[in-house]
């Protein structure tokens, strides 16, 4: 029960942080002079993009540790991180597009960072599809660990190639290329929104990790039940299994 209340407290803290962030982003921070209101998207876009990148690194770490140690908890971490990475990567792509439409006058451009983000997003969608289609248990975990490692190794090559590709072509993007320093109020808002998003990410990651662990426990229990000859109940709907071959 203490565990449940700790998580509830964390959820409340997340909600409070989010409320403060929203207030700062939409009411408190001054509007940027050149870009206008849309610049406020930055306070969401930057944190979710950083997290999407961090999630890929976490998938790779979990995958390597799983292949080396064989302990399932590393696999749960990699899987949970891939799911949250796809979620936050998707948010990064969407918030970036919302920003790009008024500023660049296009929803999308094949800039190196955008291209790399999109391709990595697809690689990790492939990772999740592989998890769904691969045989359950250790074999699926091993295969997806290999994909997780390859995705992370591939990332710098994709970025380098996309970067060279873009610079080799004339760019029609005339956005604010110069990355000047932010006003102190903007920097503070970005800091608070980053803390908020990181906290939200960590919460989601931990929740998914626990789901993975519960799934593994359920699989273990139903295997034990079957071994002992008692008809197992299906874990999804709670309906009794009709035929479990309990002979």
């Amino acid at each position, binding site marked *: 029960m203490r565990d449940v209340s700790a998580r509830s407290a964390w959820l409340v803290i997340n909600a409070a942080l989010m409320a403060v962030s929203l207030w700062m982003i939409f009411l408190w921070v001054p509007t940027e002079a050149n870009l206008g209101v849309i610049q406020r998207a930055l306070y969401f876009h930057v944190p979710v993009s950083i997290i999407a990148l961090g999630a890929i690194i976490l998938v790779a770490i979990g995958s390597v540790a799983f292949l080396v140690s064989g302990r399932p908890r590393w696999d749960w971490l990699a899987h949970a991180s891939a799911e949250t990475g796809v979620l936050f990567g998707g948010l990064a792509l969407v918030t970036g597009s919302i920003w790009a439409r008024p500023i660049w006058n296009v929803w999308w451009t094949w800039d190196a960072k955008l291209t790399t983000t999109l391709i990595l997003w697809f690689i990790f*969608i492939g990772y999740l599809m*592989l998890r769904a289609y*691969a045989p359950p248990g250790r074999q699926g975990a091993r295969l997806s660990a290999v994909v997780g490692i390859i995705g992370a190794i*591939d990332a710098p*090559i994709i970025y380098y190639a996309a970067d060279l590709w873009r610079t080799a072509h004339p760019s029609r993007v005339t956005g604010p290329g110069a990355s000047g320093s932010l006003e102190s109020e903007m920097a503070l808002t970005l800091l608070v929104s980053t803390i908020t998003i990181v906290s939200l990410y960590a919460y989601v990651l931990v929740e998914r990790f626990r789901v993975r662990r519960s799934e593994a426990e359920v699989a273990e229990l139903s295997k034990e039940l079957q071994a002992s000859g008692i008809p197992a109940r299906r874990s999804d709907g709670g309906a009794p299994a009709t035929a479990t071959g309990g002979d």
Partner: protein
Amino acid sequence: MGALGPIWAIARKDLLLEVRNRDIVVSLVVFSMLVLIVFNFAIELTPVNVAVVGPGILWVAIAFAGVIGLNRSFVLEKERDALDGLMLAPVSRDGLFLGKTLGNAIFMLVAQAVLIPVFAALFDVDILRFEIGVIAAMTTLGFAGAGTVFAAMAINTRSREIMLPVLFLPAISPLLIAAVEATAGVATGGSWGASSRWIQIITVFDAVFVVGGALLFHYVLED
């Protein structure tokens, strides 16, 4: 024989099988030519833009056909459980990987030896040159290395026909970009030096995926 013996033995097995039934190379050639023809209708090619757009069409055709060939190469192993026999053979997993990669690369290269002259004739692009041979051979090595890892994975999943391209195509995107740009550089009469940065990317990709594939392959085919 040495360390290369088992690698060559596996590649030779695939080549021998291919010489007898010509399954993979014929489907690679036919499919990639169809892709060329479809693109010809989809994109208005003129003598002005063909040297720039053409290489993209060529490499898309090769990549798509590659997916089919790689899938086929492992479906053959899966049928009648030949893969289990291979895994029982006294060959290390990295040897198995390198042998399959070599075989797949040779299939793709043979298909390209037919496809590229046809492409040059159909679209009137001046690419029948030594440089293109080097670019094609190096790119094909990367395709085969990455493709062998993913095909060996996909073969053990449900709906493997979709799993291979979903994993393979995004992963090879830097290789595809580099191959297209290097080929376009040569086709538009650019200097060899202008393509060298793209060749570097191809080299890095090849090294990473051949070495990485060899190291990781025993996790792909375990038990």
